[in-house]
């Protein structure tokens, strides 16, 4: 890579103070991003495809990204947007993923939350706008605590809780268990 381009693509990591290049971001976050895409899409192959697009977007956006609260929130936001687009395309084409019945019957609360959130995104997305879908993913699939959510959305914790309640009222009985 050209020297100038390399410099432009290096950013400062908030925790270590070390700048991160695109390659370093790839090495450090590939594993967690692939996991995140797979949790949203429920399909390994599709998650790998989506991750390619996520990496492409990261590569393009990195020179203009201002590191404030670390990389993971930003990177996961990009990944969530790409995966929600994949789900929209899937719906538009009338493709339905057969949910693994073992997962749906799991007693693991985390697995149940993910499977239910995915079902809501696939079946009831017309009831939610894009921001609400994003919040649903952040809360149930990414599993970000409400304090961090409030920080990343630039609103208060109470406002986050209020938005989640609003979504719950619209989704009704499908709302994943523990909140």
């Amino acid at each position, binding site marked *: 890579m050209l020297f100038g381009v390399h410099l432009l693509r290096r950013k400062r990591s908030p925790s270590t103070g070390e700048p991160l290049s695109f390659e370093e971001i790839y090495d450090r976050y590939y*594993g*967690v991003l692939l*996991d995140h895409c797979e949790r949203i899409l429920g399909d390994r192959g599709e998650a790998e495809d989506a991750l390619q697009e996520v990496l492409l977007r990261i590569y393009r956006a990195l020179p203009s990204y201002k590191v404030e609260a670390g990389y993971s929130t930003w990177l996961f936001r990009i990944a969530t947007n790409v995966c929600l687009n994949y789900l929209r395309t899937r719906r538009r084409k009338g493709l339905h993923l057969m949910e693994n019945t073992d997962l749906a019957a799991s007693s693991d609360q985390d697995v149940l939350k993910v499977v239910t959130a995915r079902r809501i995104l696939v079946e009831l997305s017309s009831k939610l706008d894009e921001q609400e879908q994003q919040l649903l993913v952040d809360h149930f699939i990414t599993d970000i605590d409400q304090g961090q959510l409030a920080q990343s959305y630039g609103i208060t914790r109470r406002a986050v809780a209020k938005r989640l309640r609003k979504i719950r009222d619209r989704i009704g009985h499908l709302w994943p268990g523990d909140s």
Partner: protein
Amino acid sequence: MSDCPNRFALVQYHAGELPEPNRRSIERHIDQCERCSGVIERFEQNKQQGLEQRQSTLSRIRRLADADPQTGILPTYRQRPKGWWRPALGVAASAAVVIIAVLIGTGQLGDPPDKAVIAYRGAVALHVSAYRNGHRFKLDPDRTVRRGDRLTVEVTVSSPGYVALFSMDRQGKVTPLDTDIQFETNTEIQKFETAGRHLLKSNLVVDQEFSAAHIIVAFSQDPFDASAVQSDLSSTQTEGSAPAEMIRMKNNSTVLLDSIAVPAHER
């Protein structure tokens, strides 16, 4: 465990983003919690997968990103410089162009450079997925393809252009791979009106006749002779090697290639 940290905290721990006290407390928890250590293990396995395909993925991302005119973002090294010296740089560049043109015109610099090399060439990427019993997976050298598996072939192009698809067997013999889309009359190339991802073949079934070791896509922004590409690939290919990334045609135009290895399959 009810006192497990949020999954996102595990993400931040794995990425090395947490400050020291939080990091240590999560580390202590992971040591005692099977579930959370399983999550970290999973991140690590994914990471290893990423590292194994690091080189090819990074080069593909760069090719697509740096060459995509549809985004409106030019590659960084092509961006116009900002500042007071811009006009001066413009004058210097113009003067250099005039001098080079004069030198070329008078034969002092030999043959003019190949326009196809200087001009934007676009980029192409091939995606092949396999379906077995309703499950989809990406082609992977470690996974055997079985008879009855169905393959889909998709191509992403960075700009409108022309595409041809080939299959190469293990002896290096190259043959055209038919697609679901009707080719233009009297030509073996497919015209794409738009940049982006296009489905070329949705039902390529692995059967006894199936002998592909590589699936290859050729792409150019201008029409090209697919049979010439086929014979070039056949003549330059050695057994077992991956196809080249670019072919220079006789008329000096450039055809870009991307390929995916098909793992050995059971007959």
